[in-house]
């Protein structure tokens, strides 16, 4: 199973503009496996992104929109994308000029492969 995790993260990190990809334990907020550019703190990103994802999922539920599939955060220098994968959350850190459509597509493919 760990090979599937590693493969998913490696495939994501090969997409142009992606600076890091992580599989995060959704409940504990801890990284399961990751591929990160130098200077990116995997533990911090895992903890904060999973916390944000869970909060956003609660907001979505409260608004009556149901299950949250994807959360996309836009910042000055780039994007953080989190995708629901059951007990895991796929987190991708992408540069501002990354092909977001492709990043999202790969993230959803990864989520399907892990289901």
């Amino acid at each position, binding site marked *: 199973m760990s090979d599937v995790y590693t493969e998913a993260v490696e495939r994501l990190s090969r997409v142009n503009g992606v600076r890091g990809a992580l599989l995060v334990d959704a409940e504990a*907020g801890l990284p399961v496996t990751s591929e990160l550019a130098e200077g990116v703190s995997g533990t911090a990103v895992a*903890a904060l992104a999973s916390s944000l994802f*869970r909060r956003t999922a609660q907001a979505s539920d409260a608004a009556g929109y149901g299950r949250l599939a994807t959360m996309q955060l836009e910042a000055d220098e780039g994007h953080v994308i989190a995708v629901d994968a059951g007990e895991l959350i796929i987190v991708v850190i992408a540069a501002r000029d990354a092909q977001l459509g492709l990043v999202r597509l790969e993230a959803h493919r990864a989520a399907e492969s892990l289901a």
Partner: protein
Amino acid sequence: MRRTDLPLLVEALKVPMLTFVRESRVRIALLVNGAGQVLAQHGFTRSYEVMNVASLAAATHSSARALAELTAAPRWEHLYHGGKDRQLFLAPLRTPVEELIVVAIFDADSSLGIVQLFYEQLEKEIAALPEFRVTYEGTDQANFERDLEAGLEYLSPDQ
């Protein structure tokens, strides 16, 4: 180490501890020194609960450290217990002069990753406090209870 400047210390720890509680969203937090003196607490409603947890935390810390030494581990990082509703995080917090102990109890509103992240920040903030750059006398078994109660005098929720 037994601290004789407890009121100053308790005051200095208020902001970092409050930040830790707010950011990590823990329900209960306790900061104790190796002598069992309670330096900061959040979320307790009764002083005897603080005393019990402080004593147990100090004992657990000693046991974990001894276990680490027995297994040739250089140090122990943290203890974690994931209960059905509540989770417990217990970790040594290093400062330039002494090792403190953090106990945090949290529920599904937080996560182990978040608690760990803000615990690291708490450790940095406390280690940078001028109050933790002066060495103090140690304590012994006979004085442990006295030190524990001295800490509670400043922090008791019953007062």
